[in-house]
């Protein structure tokens, strides 16, 4: 049993070992091992040519990774906190994301780093950025909830020929443990974490664990589907489940407005209108920055009570 953090490190280690085109780029990731120590030791194993420190220049880091990808490397860029990716937004969205469509050449690169709230990181060390990168074309987005997935999905992400944003919920880094496999897990496959017949909670990331806790309260009523990948999205798995349960709660930590829940809700409405026995329901964070003080943060986070209430309400609908 290893932590999710160790699983992520192991995925990078295995990819570094398997393919000498893989390089790691980031701030303080070499000797220091990164702010969260995710890359600890990798520079000793693979050398400072392949685990490379950078200045504080998120835009140049992404840009250089794009260039390196063009000449055949497979760069994995660490953001010290994923919030700082906002400073490299243009390179990722306009350069990496649009390349293949425009001139047929893709950039095989991963941008990864800690995201998410729950550790009093306040507004700039807690964000869930998935919507910002899903609402523009060209960036795959992966968001694992278990150590096993983190390992297998990161390996696939590194091997993927296109730009991938790999989100690691910092709350899970050392809190979640699991056995990991030794193989990549294909992108785009959701996982049913719990079976139920009364409604489906579709979720991902740290929220999966809260959903499982809540589902317990409802016996065999609540099914929990972990998306694992937001793009490519396993729409079929979502639809299959909702077709069975006829009710769905979309649950995530990111802001509600234009969150992943909005998109799923729209797709379910479009495709499963006649299967629905109750309103497609979202449980997500309020449309505000993330507050610092623990009580505030707790009130801000869409927690188990909110989810339980939404489930209750929908089950009784």
């Amino acid at each position: 049993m290893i932590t999710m953090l160790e699983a992520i490190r192991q995925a990078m280690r295995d990819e570094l070992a398997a393919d000498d085109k893989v390089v790691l780029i980031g701030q303080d990731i070499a000797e220091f091992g990164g702010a969260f120590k995710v890359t600890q030791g990798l520079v000793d194993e693979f050398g400072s040519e392949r685990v490379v420190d950078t200045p504080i220049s998120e835009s140049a880091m992404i840009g250089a990774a794009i260039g390196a990808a063009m000449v055949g490397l497979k760069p994995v860029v660490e953001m010290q906190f994923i919030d700082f990716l906002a400073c490299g937004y243009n390179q990722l969205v306009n350069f990496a994301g649009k390349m293949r469509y425009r001139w047929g050449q893709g950039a095989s690169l991963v941008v990864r780093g800690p995201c998410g709230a729950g550790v009093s990181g306040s507004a700039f060390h807690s964000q869930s950025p998935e919507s910002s990168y899903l609402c523009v074309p060209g960036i795959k987005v992966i968001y694992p909830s278990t150590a096993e997935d983190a390992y297998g999905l990161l390996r696939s992400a590194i091997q993927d020929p296109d730009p991938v944003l790999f989100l690691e919920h910092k709350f899970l880094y050392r809190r979640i443990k699991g056995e990991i496999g030794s193989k990549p897990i294909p992108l785009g496959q959701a996982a049913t974490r719990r079976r139920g017949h009364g409604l489906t909670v579709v979720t991902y990331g740290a929220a999966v664990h809260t959903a499982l806790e809540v589902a317990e309260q409802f016996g065999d009523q609540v099914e929990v589907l972990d998306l694992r990948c937001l793009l490519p999205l396993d729409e079929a798995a979502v639809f299959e489940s909702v077709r069975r349960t006829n009710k769905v709660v979309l649950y995530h930590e990111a802001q509600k407005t234009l969150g992943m829940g909005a998109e799923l809700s729209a797709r379910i409405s479009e495709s499963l209108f006649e299967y629905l026995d109750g309103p497609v329901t979202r449980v997500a964070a309020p449309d505000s920055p993330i507050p610092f003080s623990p009580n505030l943060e707790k009130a801000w986070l869409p927690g188990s009570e909110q989810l339980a209430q939404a489930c209750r309400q929908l089950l009784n609908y």
Partner: protein
Amino acid sequence: MTSEQKLQAYYFLKLNRALEERLLSFYKQNKVVGGLYRSLGQEAISIGSAMALQPQDWVAPLIRNVGAFLVRGYRPRDLFTQYMAKATSPTCGRDCNTHFGDIQRGVVAPISMLGAMIPVMVGVGWGSRMQGVDRVGLTYIGDGGTSTGDFHEGLNLASVWKAPMVLIAEHNQFAYSTPTSKQMAITDLVDRAKAYAIPAEIVDGNDVLAVFAATGRALEHARSGQGPYFLECKTMRMRGHAEHDDARYVPAELLEQWRGKDPIERFTRQLLDEFGFAPEQLSEQDERVKVLIEEDAEFADNSPYPDGSGALGGVFAS
């Protein structure tokens, strides 16, 4: 500096350090929420520079510029409660550590993204001049922060607009674990200023009088309509990036070498030996510091946490 100012500088230096030492005990008691970022060894920069400001000037302190808050009239309790996430903090617990400010006091709250304050303080200075207000915007940047795009865009804009703006670069040798040599190919940050024809000076950042004097010159330059000014304060970060970082990547000799340059010890010696202050004059200030720190520490410690209802609302004015 007048004699009075010298005593004041001494007071603020000691207050800054005592404040952080008190925070450190809170930290060890697990009463600090999140990381604790020290300015140990760099206090002279914030205090010397902020003391050179006129009341109408504005300042945007970063995480190690606790001293600038104090000079601007904030109390230790404001820092204590921010770090302890209390309801009584300037942001009512909404944001952390030095992430607070107040337009009325001319203090701008920073965001975490390094470099971002620079264009904003260009706007503060420029926007004031547009309105005929004599106001300079002062902010800080670390050696590492000079690698950001905003550093470049901000200083270039400042130079083109001749904005009344002063940037103090704290060259403390490290950006988290990254030494300056892995951050840039130059050794002096003043070389950055050449790209904008902004006048720049190297200052001994551990000499509060030198920082005060240089900032005074810089502000004067900016105020007179000649545009921005850049100061590089050479110094050393004497602790880890934050208290959770043991900074073993810092060569022991380097630390040793800088330990002898402590800005407070040095200024204390100067006050006594060079400027003829009596030991009692200083201990009087020490006593003031002690009393205030204890009073404010108690205040913060006894302050309640916000309750959850404070989490919502306030994103927009209406």
